[in-house]
């Protein structure tokens, strides 16, 4: 577990962090590729009617990514399945778990080798897109990120977020 105190950060990054207010308890998802924040919210099941306290920053300048999005969710820590889903659309994302305004754990998402029941195959003729009792299954290629259907071999390489179940 890597401790990372918010106060220790240099002044410049404070300005970026202050684009959205700090949270007491919950999760900060940082280094999301620019433009993917709304898809991350979709993965977390956060829609317009949510009661959760959520802050979103989009297209924040980033040295590594060019531009990045940040999502802060109050009062919630993510399940592994949610982190796996986020890794598909934001493979550089970092997850910061916050308790009492302190980052108590920080880690980078990691793409799983296989992902089941998360993405719908883009081949309309695939057996996984029928009324058969079958869960979609994909093997994950990491660089570049693409998904290969275990059943029909079709590959999803672009717009993975559009295929999330």
């Amino acid at each position: 577990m890597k401790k990372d105190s918010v106060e220790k950060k240099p002044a410049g990054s404070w300005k970026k962090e202050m684009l959205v207010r700090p949270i007491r308890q919950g999760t900060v998802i940082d280094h999301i590729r620019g433009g993917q924040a709304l898809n991350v919210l979709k993965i977390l099941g956060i829609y317009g009617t949510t009661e959760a306290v959520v802050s979103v920053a989009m297209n924040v300048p980033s040295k590594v990514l060019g531009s990045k999005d940040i999502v802060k969710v109050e009062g919630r820590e993510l399940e592994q399945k949610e982190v796996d889903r986020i890794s598909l659309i934001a493979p550089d994302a970092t997850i910061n778990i916050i308790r009492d305004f302190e980052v108590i754990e920080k880690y980078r998402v990691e793409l799983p080798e296989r992902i089941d029941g998360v993405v719908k195959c883009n081949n309309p003729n695939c057996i996984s897109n029928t009324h058969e009792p079958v869960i979609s299954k994909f093997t994950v290629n990491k660089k570049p990120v693409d998904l290969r259907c275990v059943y029909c071999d079709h590959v999803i390489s672009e717009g993975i977020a559009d295929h999330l179940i």
Partner: protein
Amino acid sequence: MSQHIISMKDFSRDEIDIILNMAREFEPIARGSKSSLLSGKILATLFYEPSTRTRLSFETAMKRLGGDVIDLGSVESSSVAKGETLADTIRVIGNYANAIVLRHPREGAARMAAEYSKVPIINAGDGAGHHPTQTLLDLYTIARESNLSDMRIALVGDLKYGRTVHSLAYALSLYHADITLISPKQLQMPDIIKKDLKKQGANIRETSNIEEVIGEIDVLYVTRIQKERFPDTAEYQKVAGIYRVTEELLENARDNLIIMHPMPRVDEIDPSVDRTKYARYFQQSFYGVPVRMTLLAMAMGAV
């Protein structure tokens, strides 16, 4: 080797070689010698799409080895018409038979069936997906009639929708074949498949002109442009009949050239070519029997 036969990607070159060597031993039985190797065993054939050669050659293979065959019959008159899922059908038939041969219009159907089946599933074609037993008989034909190592092959016709050429090209890449892909632009092999082949180390080039390569190749593998795979008939009309192998074309062929076709053909090989020394497509359809005998014997644990 898995008990199921789903995709050529599940086979190593060594495993393919074992199958081809064994098929050679089954050839006399395929020609009529008596065998009771699979006596007491039952094969179920489930064809959700029409088939002549594949179904009949599996039946022939099973019967020549002394086994019996049960058949689902037409989909319209079976439980499928009542809305039964493939997963249920497979589990029910698995109680009656020692192995199931499945052809289904959906890609991935055989892979899913294997997840539900307690008996071996042999994929006899899943939509535009895999048809491994055809590929194995194609490889066997090349091994018997030409040479599998260091050969130059041209695959002609529908390289986009044709499932046999995708599986065959993949298997040939294991033998480091020199592969020329000949098709009109609309029917070129999908990029993702070419990428996979290159990853395997295949040597591939593309052209739309048969004349350009006819004098350089050992095997000419011709495929039918499949009307039923086209989403749009206007698109089909644009490319129908675009390639035709004739005696005239073969004037520049190498002496040892062999011509193959998975059949049925429409007009892509002129009937006059049947009489030439190059034609091997009828021989190829016979080789389906010893190869499928091998696969059945392996699946049922008899060898």
